[in-house]
């Protein structure tokens, strides 16, 4: 496969990741959040595998496999089983703005990301320079997800999406990262998810809600 086609394929995968982020931002059901996140992670693992094929690096193959197993399968299943099913979460009602408004803000953020990291200003020789602005857009949209959603589970998904964006940027910008750093990030991620699971379960247990805006009120 030629280099041009690989770059094009990577562009397409990055756009798919961005669209899945928008799908998550435009959805109201917890099941969908998790499904979109899982799909996004699988697309991300394919993108990493593509870069691995291009650079012929074993650690990137390992990273692709790890992404697929942990983010594509492990975290979605854990989130579904321990949070969504156990807390009987169905429809997210704790959204601070309307869906349409958050989508419009998301579109503005995407445009901002494109203008902030124009590929022509990036160094040459990258695998696919257009993935960088796309990954920035995913990071901003993940942050937006955490801002407009008041439910802690939805915020967890927003954080995970943000992290996917960081990974997408990392594999295109600094694909020759030492493996130990990437593995460390993965460990952080798993630890973070575990902490969030405990935290949210504790929150639900004490307050009988997972809505973070409840935390602003003082209680005895």
């Amino acid at each position, binding site marked *: 496969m030629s280099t*041009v086609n690989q770059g094009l394929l990577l562009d397409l995968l990055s756009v798919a990741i961005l*669209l899945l982020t928008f799908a998550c931002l435009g959805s109201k059901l917890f099941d969908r959040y998790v499904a979109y996140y899982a799909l996004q992670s699988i697309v991300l693992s394919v993108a990493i595998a593509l870069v691995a094929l291009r650079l012929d690096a074993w650690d990137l193959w390992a990273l692709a496999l790890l992404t697929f197993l942990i983010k594509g399968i492990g975290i979605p299943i854990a989130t579904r089983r321990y949070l969504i099913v156990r807390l009987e979460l169905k429809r997210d009602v704790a959204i601070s703005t309307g869906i349409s408004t958050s*989508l419009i803000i998301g579109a503005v953020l995407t445009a901002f990301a*494109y203008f902030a990291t124009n590929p022509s200003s990036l160094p040459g020789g990258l695998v696919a320079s257009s993935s960088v602005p796309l990954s920035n857009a995913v990071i901003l949209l993940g942050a937006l997800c955490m801002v407009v959603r008041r439910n802690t589970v939805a915020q967890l998904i927003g954080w995970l999406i943000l992290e996917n964006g960081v990974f997408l940027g990392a594999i295109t910008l600094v694909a020759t990262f030492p493996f130990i750093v990437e593995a460390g990030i993965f460990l952080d991620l798993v630890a973070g998810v575990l902490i969030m699971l405990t935290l949210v379960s504790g929150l639900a247990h004490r307050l009988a809600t997972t809505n973070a805006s409840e935390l602003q009120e003082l209680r005895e």
Partner: protein
Amino acid sequence: MTSVALQILQSAIVVIFAPLYAGVLARAEAIVQSKRGPSVLQPYWDLAKLLRKGSAISENASWIFRIAPFVAFSCYLTVSTIVPIITDQPLPLAFLADLIGGAFVLSLAGFVTALAALDTASPLGGLGASRTTWIGSLAEPALILVFFTVAAVSRSDNPYFENHTVAGSISAYFLPTHLLGVVAFFMLVLVENGRIPIDNPTGSIEISMIEESRVLEYSGREYAIIKWDGWMKLFLLSSIFMNVFVIPWGLGHADSIAGGVEGALALLGKLVVCGLAIVVIDCSFAKLRLFRIAEFIGASFLFALIGIVTGYVIGR
């Protein structure tokens, strides 16, 4: 001489085959729903019956009500001359308008139909006119953005340029900009033709109708023309979708009649594909609640917008 003949052939194909396309869609939908359904020629029998009948027009109706079906019909006929339907080279009248001009002509047709619906002051007509205008006002920006994605791919808003660019190189076909434009345009085809999930084309409950409630007052010959208008619109938008966006190959050359006929046969094959997609969507989704329609069109807008910005970033 050949080009004039091809021009006439192209418009004739739109006028003649539009009812057949609608009939095939209705039949296929019935089959998917395990029903037998009407004959695929049913639209022609409807036209034959309605054209023979006289029409009853409210005495409060003005001339707008009488001419609206014909104005809309000529709008669709105009569009049929300017877009690539059977040939991949512009025919003599194609200089009239580009994609944006074509969209103007299409909205003129929608405008006169809405005026006619308001003209008799029937409550359901007013309801339908209000709803279609609201949906149109949302769909129009998205449509313009889809044309911008076309422009980002082919550096022109001429449908023939887009057709050649996309047909000419596989990497242009797989540009994210183009693929996002395809999705956005398909959603708009559903919106513009009032298909599921926007409106139920076979629905008969007046209060939930959108497109159909505009034409409730018509009868006889005018009603036949109005129905024909709707079928032509579906046929035209489907062929633009297939010929410019999805399958830009297989159009005939404009230097011989045989090329045109070949292109026409290929078009019928492509429309089977497009019709299948529409039927699958019609049968597997429910109609959206009225205020969710804005989100549906918003999604189309978003696809086109991301496509444009991506095109700007990736370049060609």
